[in-house]
Structure formats: C-alpha cells, structure tokens
C-alpha cells in the first residue's frame, strides 16, 4: 500500500501544499494565506486531499514549515523552511548547490549538498525592499497583475534607477515616474534591478557554487530571473513550479522521517 506524505508551507502571502507518494509528486495547491493561518492550513489540506481523493487517515506524516507553521492545527512535524527548500530543490535539481529563494517577506540564499542537506545559508533583513513584496507593492500601484510583471519588464530598454532603497518610498517614486512619463516596463525593470542588487549582495556573503537554482514566488517572475542572471553572470535553474518547492521539500522530509519505519 502506498504511503502518502503531506508538506505544508504557510508563507506570509501564500500557503502552499504538496502530497507525495512513492517518491512522486501527486498533488499540489497554492492559496493566499490571508490573515488566518489556521484556516489556510485547513483549506489547503482539504483541497489537496480532494484533488487526489484521499482522506486524512491516508496521510502517513505531515511536515509543516514557513512563517505560519506554528499555526497549523493538525498533527505535524515542524521543520524550518530553509531545510525544506533545500530538500525540495534537491528533489528537482540534484545538481543544484546554491539556491536563491525569493519569498514575500525575505530572500535567502542557501547552499546545499548532493543529498539536499543545507551546508550554509544567509537570510536577508526583514525589509520589503529586499523581498518579493517590493514587486507586489509596485505591481499594485502600477495596476499590473503579478503574472504580467516579468514579461513586461523584459521589454524595457531604459530601466528607471530608483533614488530610494525603501519599498514604500519606492511606491510613490513609481507613481511620480509614471506621472512624469516613464514607461511602466522601465519602472518594473528598475525594481527588478534593485532587487537583483540586494540578492547578489546576499549571494556574496555565502558564496556561490553552480548550479544555482531560484525558488519561491520570485521564481515566477521572469523579469527578476533575468535580472539576477545578468547580475550574477550565471544561468538560473528554475523549477516549473518554483513557489511550491518548499512545500515539496516538506513532503520529502515527512517521507524521510517516516521512511525508515
């Protein structure tokens, strides 16, 4: 009989869940975390089980991670998101030795070995100007959908240089730039560059070893990926669903902890 494992990643913006069985990804789901992490976790589990027609009792083990892991109301093993992320990427790209994980609240750079164990890491300050939230803030004020920011930004010829390092002031600067005639794509590209600069400073602190992967919601943003690649001078491995990598890793960890028994 197949054992099923659940990985739950309650991020500050989005909650991600994954079910694995026999070492394969069987289902995944993403929903907004909202203000109630408990509810988000419940809904996530429901949706996942619904997708593959399983019930709670079919789940052999659950690992919860992310900012809201402490609020997950059903039995689980908590594991830090850095470890889960490393396992997740290892599952997809075994050759990856460095991960750039761009989440809503922070960015982190993780070094890992061939078994997906974390061998070093560094976490950014909690400043929105260095995380995925910067993109959201700007996208929101420019009334661009998140999914469109990447493609738009890639069209830019003249990225706007921001005069501030703060996401909030950056927001008003973006508004003024538009009012003064700057193109939306140039502003987006400017933010991508600003973010890539911060990320590259983080990378310098732990060092980079190729292959280098990019995960987290930031991995959905082609504009950011290109900006980081240009800055670091290497190609990024980006999984098809970068946002669920940490949840996938959590499921893998769930399997590992139970695997032997």
């Amino acid at each position, binding site marked *: 009989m197949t054992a099923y494992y659940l990985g739950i990643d309650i991020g500050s913006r989005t909650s991600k869940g994954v079910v694995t069985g026999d070492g394969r990804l069987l289902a995944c789901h993403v929903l907004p975390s909202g203000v109630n992490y408990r509810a988000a976790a419940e809904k996530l589990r429901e949706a996942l089980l619904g997708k593959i027609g399983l019930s709670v009792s079919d789940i052999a083990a659950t690992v919860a991670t992310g900012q809201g892991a402490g609020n997950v109301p059903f039995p689980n093993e908590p594991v830090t998101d850095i470890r889960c992320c490393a396992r997740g990427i290892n599952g997809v790209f075994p050759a990856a030795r460095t991960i750039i994980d761009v989440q809503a609240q922070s960015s982190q750079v993780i070094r890992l070995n061939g078994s997906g164990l974390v061998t070093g890491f560094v976490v950014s300050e909690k400043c929105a100007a260095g995380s995925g939230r910067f993109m959201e803030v700007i996208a929101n004020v420019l009334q661009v959908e998140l999914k469109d920011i990447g493609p738009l930004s890639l069209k830019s010829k003249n990225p706007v240089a921001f*005069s*501030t*390092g703060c*996401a*909030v002031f950056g927001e008003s600067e973006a508004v003024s730039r538009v009012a003064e005639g700057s193109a939306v794509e140039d502003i987006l590209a400017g933010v991508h560059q600003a973010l890539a600069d911060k990320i590259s400073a983080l990378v310098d602190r732990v060092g980079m070893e190729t292959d280098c992967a990019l995960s987290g919601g930031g991995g959905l943003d082609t504009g950011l990926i290109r900006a980081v690649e240009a800055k670091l001078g290497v190609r990024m491995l980006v999984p098809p669903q970068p946002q669920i990598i940490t949840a996938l890793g959590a499921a893998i960890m769930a399997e590992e902890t139970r695997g032997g028994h």
Partner: protein
Amino acid sequence: MKAEPLYFAGIDLGSTMTKVVIIDAGERLLSRVESHTGAEHRRLANRVMEEALALAGLPFSEIAYVVATGYGRINVPFADRQITELTCHARGVASLFPGVRTALDIGGQDAKGLKLKDGKLVDFVMNDKCAAGTGRFLEVIARTLGLELAELGSLSLKSANPVSISNTCTVFAQQEVTTRLSDGVPLEDIVAGLHQAIASRAVGMLRQLKIEPEVVFTGGVAKNSGVVKAVRENLGGEVLVPDDPLISGALGAALLGQDILQKAQAKGETVIRQERRLAEATFFQQT
C-alpha cells in the same frame, strides 16, 4: 519711488502635502492652503500657489518674495530662493514658540530633530531612509484599515492596552496589522501600538540632540493626537503642538523671505527675484 509690496509667500512642497502660506509684513497670516502632493500635483505646485493667492485676494505680482522649501523645493520654478525644510521649520517654530530650543518634525517622508538657539537653527538630525517612523507609515496603515488619517488619533486615545507590532518594516507591519485584527485585537489597541512605535523611533532620533524641554512637535503627524500623546509619554515631558502643525515649514519659509528682504534693504542691496509667473514644477531633480 514705488513702495515695495510687502507680502511674502512660503511654499513647502512636501513629499505628501504641499503647503502654501502668504503673510504680510506684520507676520499676519493672509492665507494658507494645503493639498495632497499626489503624483499629478507634483508637477503643479502653481495650482496651490494660485489658490493661496486667490484666498488672500492678491495678484502674484504683489508678493515681494517667494521661498520654496520641502523635498521638492529645487523644482519650484517661480521661487526666488530655495531653503531647506530644516531651516524653514526652525524659523516657523521660533516664531510660533519663541524661546523654544528643541523641535521634532515628522512629515510624510522623514523625521527631523531641530535644535534652536536664539531663534536660529544650530543643529539637527534627520531620518529619511526608511518609511518606518514617518508619516507615510501611518498613511499606509490607515489605508489598510480603511480609516481616515484624521481618525487615527482619537481612535488610539481610547486604547488602554496598546499592542506592540513586531515588524518594523512598514510593508510587513501593514500585514501584521491585518493578522492582529483577525485575531480579535481591538482596532484602537493596534493603532495605539503603531503610534508608540513611531514615537519611540522619533524620540530615539531626537535624543541625538541633547533634548532641552519643552519640545515643540510639528509636521503633519503632529496633527495626530495619538502620536502626540505617545511622544509626550516617551519624552516624559511636555510637548507643545502649534494649532496648525502642518504649515510651520511654509510659514518659516515665508518669514525667511521677509528676513532676506529686510536684511538686503538694510544693506541697501537689491534683491534678485524671479519673474512672477506660475509654471509647472517637477518633483525630481532635473538633470
């Protein structure tokens, strides 16, 4: 010889609010106008000026001197002189509260501490890198909570139990606030907590200048009675707030205009002035 018209205008093109003040030679306030600086207005400082002139019932040509200050001061084309907001605020404060030696100004984009001696600015500190600790922080939160800025103060005064918000970053605090609300924390406790956070940052900065009571508190954020209370608690001393805290910079600018003209006249010098023509202003420095 034609007598000089003796009216002075100060325009404070702030990051959030644009303020214009017109005074006469007796330092009487003839008109004051405030308007959101907003993206489109940033280029249109002249509109606010026009409005102020209309209110005062004066043609532009009657204004003897125009001083521009604030974040966008460099680009007010019709100003005769640009003076930093630090000097202008100090001048405004000195006229409103003669003898005061320490002032705190929290505006939309920065917080400043001013040190005065004999009515003149002698030292200052400034915090302008991060929105946390500025009026912008409160704007963002008010927007999130669907509240008017003007409501924040009285609401927070109801709180007996301010909660502390663990995120310093404005953006993340905004999110934390929503989470706290959904946890059932009363709105007023959250708002009061935010006011405390702003106040403690501001007072921390102000401390870099040996504080000499009493402290005057100006800038848009001083309109918020909750922050005023928190600043008072943090300082452990009296805090003076002008009736119209928003305009102290513009007022100071107008007064400085008068000072400049008087000084020049006393020396028998002629003052160079811009053509009295309203024109568009841009916000960013032109390169």
